[in-house]
């Protein structure tokens, strides 16, 4: 059986600055992996490469054995066609630090947009799927509110519902609680935890060490564009093998 996600020797540069220097990572169905590390270590970039929000110059990423973003023909590496990339992006769902809800649409409309435009569902079916997922994140009663009428935590939960309603193979969470007021963090983490318990495969870039410890079955510590250390959270957090990780944990909220 092929892995859900397979990243091989991933290289990514912005101009002359190499931010990913050969990352390898595999992930099985149902895995919940937290990616931790100091800012600038490349963790968000790695996440964004998986759904082609960033282009990458070397290596490969596959989901269910299907290569993402690029194809090699006649020894030449080409970016796939825009339509094909759009289809592949829908294999993953993504939640962002800044929520990025569409401000001119109600919560329900935000969730329905992809269902109608990408999955080509009818309005009624899309609406009922949207309501189901808004209910799952505890916001059924806010379905007809606009983002501007919702708190940050509520907006982030709608954004998660919007991503998950597309039925992705893998959810990507990019520091989804970093822009939230402290008292709103928990409601969002609870939603993610419930999804993890339902067996959703997910990759989380996070600064919430306690949460990473509790929810993930594996943790990846990124350090200067490479994987510095990885393993199960218990071992990593209690017995870090590298000095860099030990130092990082000391300065992070876990220590």
């Amino acid at each position, binding site marked *: 059986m092929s892995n859900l996600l397979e990243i091989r020797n991933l290289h990514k540069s912005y101009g002359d600055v190499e931010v990913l220097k050969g990352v390898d990572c595999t992930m099985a169905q149902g895995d919940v992996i937290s990616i931790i590390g100091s800012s600038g270590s490349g963790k968000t970039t790695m996440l964004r490469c998986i*759904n*082609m*929000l960033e282009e990458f110059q070397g290596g490969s990423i596959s989901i269910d054995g299907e290569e993402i973003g690029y194809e090699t023909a006649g020894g030449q590496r080409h970016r796939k066609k*825009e*339509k094909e990339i*759009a*289809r592949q*992006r*829908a294999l*993953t*769902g*993504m939640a*962002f630090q*800044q929520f*990025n*809800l*569409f*401000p*001119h649409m109600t919560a329900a409309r935000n969730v329905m*947009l*992809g269902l109608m*435009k*990408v999955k080509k569902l009818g309005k009624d079916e899309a609406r009922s799927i949207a309501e189901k997922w808004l209910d799952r994140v505890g916001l059924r009663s806010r379905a007809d509110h*606009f983002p*501007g*009428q919702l708190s940050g935590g509520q907006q982030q939960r709608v*954004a998660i519902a*919007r*991503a998950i309603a*597309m039925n992705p193979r893998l959810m990507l969470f990019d520091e989804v609680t970093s822009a939230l007021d402290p008292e709103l963090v928990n409601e969002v983490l609870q939603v993610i935890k419930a999804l993890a318990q339902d067996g959703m495969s997910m990759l989380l870039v996070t600064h919430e060490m306690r949460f990473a410890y509790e929810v993930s079955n594996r943790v990846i510590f990124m350090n200067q564009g490479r994987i510095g250390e990885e393993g199960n959270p218990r071992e990593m957090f209690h017995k870090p093998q590298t000095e860099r990780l030990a130092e990082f944990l000391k300065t992070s909220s876990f220590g």
Partner: protein
Amino acid sequence: MGYTLNFAAVWRSFDLLLQGLALSLALAFGAILIGAIIGLITAFGLISKNGLIKRPAGIYVTIIRNTPILVLVLFSYFALPQLGLRLGKIESFVFTLALYSGAYLAEVFRAGLLSIPPGLREAGLAIGLTEMQIRTSIIAPLMFRNILPSLSSTIISLFKDTSLAAAIAIPELTFEARKINVESFRVIETWIVASCLYVFTCSILAALMRSVERRLSLPR
């Protein structure tokens, strides 16, 4: 001075002024509608990273914005036929004003596009939308809301520019007013009434735009 205002002659021909006003509005409507399409495409060109798209869009805007509209009107009515492109008066004027509107609206739209956070495009991409779907469902509607105040003043200014159609004898409001003026010698009265009609129409346009703005404003 001893001048007594006498509007009788103007009132007698008032229906001509109203017909002229109707034509002014029709010219503006047609030109702005076409201009909006040109402007929208140009605006996406202006913010494109591809030089082959960005450069022509920039050249078009620069040329049009640095040429007086009257020169453009005269050029397309008198010079284009010499080059083999013969258009009727009205077509020629609407075509010119559309091209002119396009350049001004492109700048308005461009500012609106730049005010949209890039994260919204990424959120659209992440759920599998194509760039075109993102433009039509997310970016254009948001941009439209952002620019309504400046769009309103641009539209009013383009409406007033229809008075230049008088230069090629299109019977719009200014042309009709001049005719009445010449026939009746009531210079002051004629231009007072014509000005009032312009002011009145512009106020209505502004009020309409404000009501659209209110209707589209997002609840918070």
